[in-house]
């Protein structure tokens, strides 16, 4: 039964892009195509665009992404604990609580370091 479930997901992942591809193929065939340089300019504020678009981005976003990575990975470890919850003895629950407290301590550390401040 388990392999049947994943077979379904696999087929779904293959079929799902076909619908938007068809939706893009129809205008490709029937829509008018008359490009010219003025039409193809970037739509920005009332000036012609200056300089390269693909710049290096602000480090602030990078710090949020790092914090996210830590929290998400740690939370993934909590999911098996939550699934097995019915069979857990009390000390295992306590260990889970300890883990969450460590997670919270990480959050407090980030907070105190001003890593969560938008600049």
């Amino acid at each position, binding site marked *: 039964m388990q392999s049947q*479930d994943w077979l379904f997901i696999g087929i779904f992942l293959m079929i799902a892009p076909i619908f938007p591809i068809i939706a893009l193929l129809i205008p490709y065939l029937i829509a008018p195509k008359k490009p010219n340089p003025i039409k193809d300019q970037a739509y920005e504020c009332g000036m012609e665009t200056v300089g390269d678009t693909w710049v290096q981005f602000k480090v602030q976003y990078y710090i*949020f992404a790092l914090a996210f990575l830590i929290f998400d990975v740690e939370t993934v470890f909590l999911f098996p604990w*939550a*699934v097995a*919850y019915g069979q857990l003895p009390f000390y295992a629950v306590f260990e889970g609580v300890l883990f969450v407290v460590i997670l919270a301590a990480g959050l407090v550390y980030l*907070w105190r370091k001003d890593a969560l401040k938008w600049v």
Partner: protein
Amino acid sequence: MSDPINLIANWLRNLLATWGFSPGLINIVLALLGVLVIAVFVLLLDVFLVWVERKVVARFQDRLGPNRLGPFGLIQPIADVIKLLIKEDITPRGADRIIYNLAPILAFATVITLWAVIPFSHSLIGSDLNVAVLYIVAVGALGTLGIIMAGWASNNKFALIGAFRTVSQVVSYEVPMVISLLIPVILAHSMSIQDIVYSQNIWNILLAPLAALIIFITAIAELGRAPFDLIEAESEIVAGFNIEYTGMKFGLFYAGELLHALTMGALFSSLFLGGWRGPFVDQIPILGVFYLLLKSFLIYWAIMWVKYSMPRIRIDHLLNFGWKFLTPLALVMVLVTAILDKAMENMSTLVYTSGMLAANIIIIWLTVILLRSYAKTERKRVAEPKPVARPDLAARRS
């Protein structure tokens, strides 16, 4: 058997077997048919959603909305689709063509894929994965990747800013969402959405109203809808990530967003509102589809209600709200739910439910007190005079 879909599936299985297909092949053919049925059903819903969205917006803004084509303007979305299909498709100069065209496909395909694990009734489910909650989180995040690709490939600075904002926003709200998803998992002892629905003899929203609220808020943030629509803030960055998209490519982003909102509604109702369960559903399983859609549209309507009544939130407030309020609150809720669930394991349902509800109400009360004191200090901080470049001018003005 009063379950037409399973009846047809069994009939097809027997028919294919008599034609001499091997069991493995039969499984593949049936899975393929199931995928097509779910995907087409979802796409039809999506066309209907365009009408719902336009009509409800109009009502919120005291307008009539589409009412010319067909009864109540029901044919309007078809006219919209035809218009999008025959519109000229413009690709901006210097765009990264492959990623530019791939982005709307990815954004739309991932939303359809989410429906694979949502149960419609006790036998009607695409795939009863035992890790469905993680699957939802993973595939939902892929849709965000489509937005980032669109913003990056458009060769437009506004689109790029929109994409950057998406990163910080989704990354910040994913954390409280994943932590809050632990709570229904703890209550049901399973990650399969079907098991979570089965476990809700009492709806989870009574056992964990705060977790439901956190998931509702983070779902709106994941969708990028107002008040969290910084990624497409019209007044600042024109249209954000989809600024350079025209015709059907824009249409895919738009339809994908609407469908994602309904998907979040379906997910929320499966996790907290009992999913397909309702009166008489045991006798007539097909009623489950009706109940699920009813609950999903209710949540969808609530999301729209929030969208059209709230002003846009500023980005530093947005990130503070995610990291300094929702995340700690979600962590506290996990701890409280875990300990209470273990402590009241052997008690009666009434005691269990009222205990959980009371704990939630106490935490809501404490949170409101904390928020009040925070607001007081914040008001004081903001009102303080800021250092200025020309103190003499500032002194003269005041």
